């Protein structure tokens, strides 16, 4: 099995999708010659040409709005938004058109568009480059939202997202782009809209996604040294959520910690907590605890280590849950 970084796996996934279907287009700022600011699309324009890998004007509403038109025409555009905090000029087109054209037309006009967004902090960046806006999309009916956390998922989930006949907002953990792992290119490990148990355990369930999956796996390893047995679940699909494995796990452990970089208020983690209390009420030995970013704007980078949930904060929540 080849070793790949997440960035490389995404690029290879895009390449495979483009090879498979000539209607797949890549469009975004600097995605062509430069290969994207994170080099995810490196080499694709050279191989597929300027009509399939479009270096677009600097205009996010334009990227999404024209992708909607191209989808009406029968194309399957994959849009790159350069950074999480830059998606908002395109948010109107995402919410008003991309999410609603299928419903408006009652299925006559599908919207098979993928919007890739590198998200999350931890890279010492200036403002608007470290945000976690996934809940703003998960709240919008008509959109599907996923987040990958490792190279193998990156390779497969991007292809599965492109094959989906609905718009998919695809979040990529930017601070993990350069982390390598083995990628099985033979077949996808799971359907796109499914969560996965990455580490089985019996005492506390930890649900997470995106960049913090690695953090939680490391926390589980550290806990093991202290004799604690954590089960780590990578949610992967944020809308629709696939909480079956979480319910099953919580019914065994009685304890749940939900982890995300995003602010907690009205968030994906809030949704997980609400549904788990509804489905697993009598199994819970403690309230569902959340370890998240604060309900503040993303801070200046020199504060981000305090803002971002880390291994210790995850284990602190685990301890509090068990001590309840």
């Amino acid at each position, binding site marked *: 099995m080849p070793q790949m970084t997440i960035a490389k796996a995404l690029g290879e996934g895009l390449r495979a999708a483009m090879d498979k279907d000539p209607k797949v287009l890549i469009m975004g700022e600097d995605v062509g010659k430069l290969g994207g600011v994170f080099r995810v699309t490196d080499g694709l324009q050279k191989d597929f040409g300027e009509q399939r890998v479009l270096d677009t*004007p600097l205009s996010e509403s334009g990227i999404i*709005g*024209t992708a909607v038109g191209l989808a*009406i025409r029968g194309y399957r555009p994959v849009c790159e938004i350069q950074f999480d905090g830059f998606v908002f000029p395109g948010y109107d087109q995402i919410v008003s058109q991309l999410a609603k054209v299928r419903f408006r037309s009652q299925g006559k006009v599908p919207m098979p568009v993928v919007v890739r967004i590198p998200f999350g902090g931890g890279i010492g960046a200036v403002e608007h480059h470290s945000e976690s806006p996934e809940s703003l999309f998960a709240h919008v009916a008509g959109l599907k939202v996923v987040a990958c956390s490792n190279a193998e998922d990156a390779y497969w989930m991007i292809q599965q997202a492109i094959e989906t006949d609905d718009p998919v907002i695809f979040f990529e953990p930017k601070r993990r782009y350069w982390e390598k792992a083995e990628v099985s290119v033979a077949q996808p490990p799971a359907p796109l809209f499914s969560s996965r148990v990455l580490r089985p355990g019996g005492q506390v369930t930890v649900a997470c996604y995106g960049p913090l999956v690695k953090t939680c796996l490391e926390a589980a390893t550290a806990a093991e040294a202290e004799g604690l047995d954590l089960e780590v679940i990578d949610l992967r699909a944020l*809308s*629709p959520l696939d909480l079956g494995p979480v319910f099953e796990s919580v019914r065994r452990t009685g304890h749940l910690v939900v982890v995300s970089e995003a602010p907690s208020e009205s968030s994906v983690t809030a949704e997980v907590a609400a549904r788990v209390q509804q489905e697993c009420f009598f199994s819970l030995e403690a309230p569902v605890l959340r370890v998240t970013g604060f309900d503040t704007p993303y801070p200046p980078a020199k504060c981000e280590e305090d803002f971002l949930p880390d291994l210790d904060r995850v284990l602190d929540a685990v301890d509090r849950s068990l001590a309840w």
Partner: protein
Amino acid sequence: MSDPQGWIPGDPRSRPTPEHIVTGLKGTDAGGEDLVQLLTPEGVRVPDERFESYAADIDEAMLKDLYRDMVLVRRADREGNALQRQGQLGIWVPLLGQEAAQIGAGRALEPQDMAFPSYREHGVAWCRGIDPTDLLGIFRGTDHGSWDPLEKRFHLYTIVIGNQCLNATGYAMGQVFDSRVGGADTGTTREATMCFFGDGATSQGDVHEGFVWAAAYDAPVVFYCQNNQWAISVPLEKQTRVPLYQRARGYGFPGIRVDGNDVLACLAVSRWALAECRSGNGPVLVEAFTYRMDSHTTSDDASRYRLADEVELWKLKDPIERVRVNLVREHGVEPEFFADVDAEADALAERLRAFCRAMPDPSPDRIFSEVYADLSPQVEAQKAEYLAYRESFAESIGSEA
């Protein structure tokens, strides 16, 4: 801004400059010296060096067809207003006054072309073969648009102002990628896209971005702006310092101002613009200079913000009357033709009324229909739960009946 000295509104001996017009002194059909006109408000056919050839084939029969189109869509429009007043529709968006702008553009479209409307384009919809009854659901609240956009080559109404300019541009980029633009014209192999929006939309970022993208990708889009002078209560001078058609120059493509109440000029200019786009010379901006004779919608009250004098002045520039006069004077058309069209219009109105009153409400499961290609488990669960909850009242509802 220049002052209106030297121009007396309503006095045909003086003419306003474009600056007069955009500063709110709009009571004229004379949209400046660049206005393209083939039929005067008095019904006199006048030549136009540049666009004459694009209306050369319009004989008496075709002019009658255009007249019929306009009368029928006006009648449908008035019936829409009436149905709202009778409580049959939640709202209606009138096109009154814009019949020529819409029929001229709509009849210039070829079957293979694509159109992206705003929400007032009942006349263009008519030209695309969409029956006026198919528009009612949007305003009655039974659907968000009932026709097949790909079959009719007419996208669904877009209500968020300006969004469709980017969608149209993207579609037109696809026409380029599909090699349907430029090259040899073999009838239906070349395509263009027409995007409809109003003067108010020109203040939206998406219209700007649409212009930028269309220019960057040589996209075959005719940006067709119906300048009806009012964005609900906001007059044109709050949107622009220059006449709208002149904005195209800043984006590097042509902009033409046409008399939007002159169906021949709208047809000719639209045909020219679409031909330019199909041959690879797009995009093009067309500003159809017209007037919204009614309120913005049935929920609006235009008397709160504009003078009745202005409306009265524009009544003299009526898009239908000038064609009627021309048909009588220059083609000797008999009154019987007009009576027949009126009768047809009345029948259409009657058909609309009957159809509207008989429209069934959608069933509650419509809420959940086609949100996704495959409904998510949670929405599926909500649907099942709600329908079961509703079903639990079936017995008591049944016993009341």
